[in-house]
C-alpha cells in the first residue's frame, strides 16, 4: 500500500495573460501522506492555493497545468490503483470532485450561494453525484453531519447563509466537505476570518475528523503556530516553489531552509519578547520578474556567491525531508 494519497510530480502551473505568462507554481514534487495532515505554508501569492486547487482542476481562470502529473492513489481492498487526475477530462473530473477530494474554502461566508438554503445546497450536491434520491435519507445524512460538527441541524438546514455567524458557516462548510465521504479534504486557510477561540475549536474539530474518519488533509495557512500544533508534515512554499518539505518536528527543530527559519523567527509567541521578532527583510518575489539564481537569495541573510548563479535543485535527505537550498544538508539549526 502506497503511503501517499496524492503525488505531485514536477508540477508547473501557468497563468497565460494577454502579454506574458506567469508561472505560479514551478516544478513541485510532493507526496501527500494518506491519513495525515500535511500543511502548506507560505505568504499569499506563494502558489499554495493554486497548487492544491489543481488537484480538482479548480484553478482560477486562466490558470493551467503546464507540465507534470498529479497522481491519485485509490485504495481498493488493500490494492493500489494509480489514477492520473491531471489528465482527466472535465467529464471524468466531475464525479471525482467532492466525492474523492473536497475543499473547505478560505472565505466560508462567500462560498455558499446566498439565495439558497443550506439544505438546498447539500441536496443539490448529493443529487449531482447520483446519490440516493430518497428525501428522508438525504435529510438524515445532512443532519448527521451537521450534528457531528455540533450545530443545531434543524435550524441550520433551513437557514440561508447570511443568517449564520462566521463560525457557524465555517462548520457548515466542514460538514459540507464530509458529505460524500471524501478521501482528502483541502483546507484553504479555514480560520482566517474567525476569532481565536473559534479558531482553536475548528482545528480541534478537524483533528478529530482526521483521526476518527481517517481522512487525509491538506491544510493551507500562513499561521506557523497552527502548523506546529496540528500538522504532521509541512511543505513550505515560496515564489511558486516548494522550498522545504519534511516532518513537522524536523522543520521546526532544524529550520534548514533560511526562509523557513525566517518564517519561524517572525512568528510571535505569547511568552516571547516582541523585540526578539525578526521580520524577513525585503518583500515577496515578483513572479513576473524573478531574481537570478535562488529566488530567495535577495532576502537571504546567508546568501553566497553560488546562490545568485544557478537556481538550486531539490536536495533530498534520508529522513524524508527535502529542500531547495545549496546548503540544505549542512544547515541544521536544530536543538536536538
Amino acid at each position, binding site marked *: 500500500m502506497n503511503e501517499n494519497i496524492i503525488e505531485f510530480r514536477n508540477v508547473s502551473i501557468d497563468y497565460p495573460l494577454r502579454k506574458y505568462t506567469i508561472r505560479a507554481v514551478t516544478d513541485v514534487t510532493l507526496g501527500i501522506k494518506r491519513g495525515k495532515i500535511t500543511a502548506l505554508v507560505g505568504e499569499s501569492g506563494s502558489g499554495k492555493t493554486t497548487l492544491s486547487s489543481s488537484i480538482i482542476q*479548480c484553478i482560477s481562470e486562466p490558470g493551467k497545468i503546464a507540465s507534470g502529473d498529479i497522481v491519485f492513489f485509490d485504495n481498493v481492498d488493500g490494492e493500489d490503483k494509480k489514477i492520473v487526475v491531471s489528465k482527466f477530462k472535465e467529464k471524468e473530473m466531475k464525479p471525482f470532485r*467532492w466525492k474523492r477530494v473536497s475543499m473547505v*474554502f478560505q472565505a466560508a461566508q462567500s*462560498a*455558499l*450561494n446566498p*439565495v439558497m438554503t443550506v439544505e438546498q445546497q447539500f441536496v*443539490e450536491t448529493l443529487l449531482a453525484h447520483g446519490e440516493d434520491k430518497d428525501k428522508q435519507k438525504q435529510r438524515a445524512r445532512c443532519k448527521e453531519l451537521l450534528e457531528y460538527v455540533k450545530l443545531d441541524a434543524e435550524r441550520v438546514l433551513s437557514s*440561508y447563509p447570511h443568517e449564520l455567524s462566521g463560525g457557524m458557516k465555517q462548520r457548515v462548510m466542514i460538514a459540507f466537505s464530509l458529505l460524500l465521504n471524501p478521501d482528502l479534504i483541502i483546507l484553504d486557510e479555514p480560520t482566517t476570518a474567525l476569532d481565536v477561540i473559534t479558531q482553536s475549536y475548528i482545528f480541534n474539530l478537524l483533528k478529530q475528523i482526521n483521526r476518527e474518519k481517517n481522512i487525509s488533509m491538506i491544510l493551507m495557512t500562513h499561521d506557523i503556530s497552527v502548523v506546529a500544533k496540528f500538522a504532521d508534515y509541512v511543505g513550505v512554499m515560496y515564489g511558486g516553489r516548494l522550498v522545504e518539505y519534511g516532518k513537522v518536528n524536523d522543520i521546526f527543530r532544524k529550520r534548514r531552509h533560511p526562509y523557513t527559519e525566517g518564517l519561524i523567527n517572525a512568528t510571535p509567541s505569547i511568552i516571547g519578547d516582541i523585540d526578539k521578532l525578526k521580520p524577513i527583510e525585503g518583500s515577496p518575489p515578483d513572479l513576473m520578474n524573478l531574481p537570478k539564481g535562488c529566488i530567495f537569495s535577495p532576502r537571504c541573510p546567508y546568501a553566497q556567491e553560488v546562490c545568485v548563479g544557478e537556481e538550486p535543485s531539490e536536495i533530498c535527505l534520508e529522513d524524508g525531508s527535502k529542500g531547495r537550498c545549496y546548503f540544505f544538508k549542512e544547515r541544521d539549526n536544530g536543538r536536538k
Partner: protein
Amino acid sequence: MTKDKQNFKSFVKKAGRAIGRFFVKYKYFFAKIGVAVVTLTLTIILLFFLLRLIPGDIVELYALKLQAQQGITFDRAYELASQLLNYDPNEDVFSAFFRYIGGLFKGQLGESYLETGVSANSLLKTRLPWTLFVSSVALFVSFFLGVLIGGYVAQRRRGIGNKIASTYIAISGSIPDYLMALLLVIVFAYKLDWFPSQNNYDAFNTTPGFNFPFIGSVLHHAFLPILSYTLVQTGNWILHMRGSCIGVLGEDYINAAKARGLSDRTIRNKYMRKNALLPLVTMFGVTFGALFGGATLMESIFNYPGIGLEISNRIVNKDYMVVQGLIFFSAAMVIVVNLIVDLIYPLIDPRVKRG
C-alpha cells in the same frame, strides 16, 4: 354580564396585541407603503401648482380662437368661451385644488376644458392600450435578449461574441431612441416601403375587432416602433446583465460550486443567472413603471396614438386639466410599480429582511 364584559375586555386586549404584532411583523411592508403614499400626495400637489404657473387665461385664449373662427367680437367670444369651457375663471386656487382632490378620490383624473365628455380617464382607456402594447412587448423582448446575451458573453469575455456585444452596446448607446426611430422610419418606411410610417392601424381598409386583417394591420404598424425600442434597450440590458454576471462570477461560491462537482449548466442557471438577475429585477420594475407615461418623442415620430403623443398634443392645445391627469397617472404608476417590486423583492432575495 360581568363575565361577558371580562371576556370582551380580554378579547379586545388579545386583538390589540395581535394587531400590534401584525404591524411589527410586516414593518417592512408598511414602511414602503407609507413612503409611496407620501410621494403620491406630494406629486399631486406639485403637479397641481406647477400647472397653475402656466401664464395666460385659458378662457381668453379660447375666446381669441373663437373670434378668429367665427368672426365675432371679442366680448361676444369671451362670453361664449366661458359658457362652452368647462372652467370657472373666478374659482380660487384652493377650492379648485380641493375639488380636484375630491375628483381623484372618485377616480376622476381630470375633465377636458375644451371638449365635453373627454377626460383623462377616457383618454387613458383609448390610448393606454396602444402605448402599453408597443412598449411592453419591446421591453420584454429586449430584457429577454439582454439577459441571454449578457449572461453568455460574461462567461466568454475573451471571445469574439463579447467584442460584438461591446460594439453593439456602444452604437446603440450613442443613438437616442427617437433618432433610432427616425432612422428606421426613413429606411423601412420611406426607402424600402416595407412598413407604414404612421398610425396604429389601417383605418380605411380594416375594421377594429377580432379579425385577421385588423390584427395583421396592427402588428404591421407596431413593428417599427417595437423594433426601435428593442434595438436601443437591448444594448442597455446586455450591458447591465453582463456587468452583474461578471460580478457574480468573481464570487467564491461559483468556484465552490465547481469544486462540488456541479455541472456547468447548474452553475450557469442556478448560481450565475439567479444571482445576477436580482439587481436587474428592480431595474425592470422601474422601466416597466415608466412605460405608462408613454414615449412622447417615439410616438410623435410614428404618429402612434399613445399616451405620450396625447400628453404632448394636449399641452400644445393647453388642455391642462387632462395633462395634469395623465402626468399624474404615469407618475402614480411609477410609484405603484416600484412599490410592488419593493414588496415582492424579499421573496426573491432572502438577504433582504422581510421585516
